[in-house]
């Protein structure tokens, strides 16, 4: 119990002193997961809508696979990305290993199935509602997808925030492909793992509390910006 208290004190100290190293790794965490989230959303949301409006032969199989991949172990994703980006691997010439780009690639792979699956669930219900209307209006498939994405945006925001949550707290993959290099690829979670390894539990917990606060702030900020949960809006 005492250590939890020490951790809270350490978090307070880090925040009050406005530690520049903390600011740097916090911003890098946000940058890596933020970019990964945008890229993943650009892939996953249209995919979710497509799975809702279009009937094709492997549709059920695709949905089942996406659902299963929600539980993709990050450490395995990290290892696969590592092997591909390694200098001895197929994409080694790009020299991307141990850069923030490699971390973004790994996180995109981890969160695409989550956003696509959760997004598809909500769009499917919406499609059941809109199906007759959109068909009677003789819309193109593109128009149907755009309509679903726009009218389902609040549910999709939840899907995207779930993806953000999985990415910002993830350590297994980014530790392997990023390497936890100070001032280059060190982020909140890998810094926590490092301090735990040094036995400095107070600092590790302090960083952990800061990370949790950061995740809450991001969620609040996005809800506020998109004005959900307000009167007369849903």
């Amino acid at each position, binding site marked *: 119990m005492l250590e939890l208290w020490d951790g809270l004190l350490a978090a307070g100290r880090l925040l009050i002193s406005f530690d520049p190293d903390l600011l740097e790794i916090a911003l890098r965490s946000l940058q890596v997961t*933020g970019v990964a989230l945008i890229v993943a959303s650009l892939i996953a949301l249209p995919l979710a809508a497509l799975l809702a409006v279009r009937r094709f032969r492997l549709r059920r199989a695709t949905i089942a696979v996406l659902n299963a991949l929600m539980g993709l172990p990050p450490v395995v994703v990290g290892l696969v990305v590592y092997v591909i980006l*390694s*200098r*001895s691997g197929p994409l080694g010439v790009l020299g991307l290993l141990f850069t923030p780009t490699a971390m973004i690639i790994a996180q995109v792979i981890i969160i695409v199935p989550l956003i696509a699956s959760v997004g598809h669930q909500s769009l499917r219900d919406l499609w059941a509602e809109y199906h007759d209307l959109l068909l009677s209006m003789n819309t193109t498939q593109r128009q149907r997808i755009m309509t679903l994405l726009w009218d389902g945006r609040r549910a999709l925001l939840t899907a995207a925030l779930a993806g953000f949550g999985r990415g910002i707290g993830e350590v297994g993959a980014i530790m392997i492909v990023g390497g936890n290099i100070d001032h280059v690829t060190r982020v909140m979670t890998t810094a926590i793992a490092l301090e735990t*390894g*040094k036995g400095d*539990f107070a600092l590790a917990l302090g960083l952990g509390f800061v990370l949790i606060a950061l995740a809450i702030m991001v969620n609040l900020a996005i809800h506020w910006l998109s004005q959900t949960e307000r009167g007369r809006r849903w």
Partner: protein
Amino acid sequence: MFKHLISAALAALLITPAARAEDLKMAVTTSFHNSGLADVLLPAIKDDTGIDVQLLVVGTGQALRLGAAGDVDAILVHAKAAEEAFVAEGNATHRREIMYNDFVIVGPSADPAGTADADKATTALGAIAAAKAPFVSRGDDSGTHKKELSLWAAAGVTPEGQWYRAVGAGMGAALNTASGMNAYILADRASWLNFGNKGDLALLFAGDPVLFNQYAYLPVNPAKHPHVKAELAVELEEWLTSPRAATLIDGYRVAGEQLFTFNAQAAD
């Protein structure tokens, strides 16, 4: 509103740190990094040579793998036999000894196996095995793990059974485990002194020459991996073997104790 979100996110995308010209990736062992010596040496290297050394902190086994794949420019590890095999396979141009520290046997302060009275490291380990006192092994193919296995072999003991617990983790995590179970463990002195979660553990045995732990620098072979920064690696090696490095390494103290001893030979 969604457009604002997206444009804000795109702006974040564009703020990426500028690539540095003179950076060199070096894989080092967890024990070296946890000692805190890196925090002294890296700024000095940056000041003197302008090289930004980016450390990848991994076990010796993984460090050697990174070097063999050409993913780092140099490695600094401590496992002589594995290093010599690494050079023989053409992965590094040569092996240069830099400094040494030593391993210590750490365990519960009550010392149920009586290791503190042992005259040799192998006797101490034999006593632990005979008492079946809990012992935490790194079990991660690191330099420390290899050292531990060679000591068990020298003691004529096959470590197995309930008391022998291989955790497959770095030095810090293994020390945390040992602290949690109040078990014996072989650790390097630097990691032990810097470790913040000692609990009931105490340093019980040290000083046997067999426990000396030689660190060596191996630049990755540019003939095998043309993209490595061989010139920077040579420059770094010159710095690491210079009198300035000697002063910093010998002068590094934790809790008043000298951790590392510089022993690089001048180039022939």
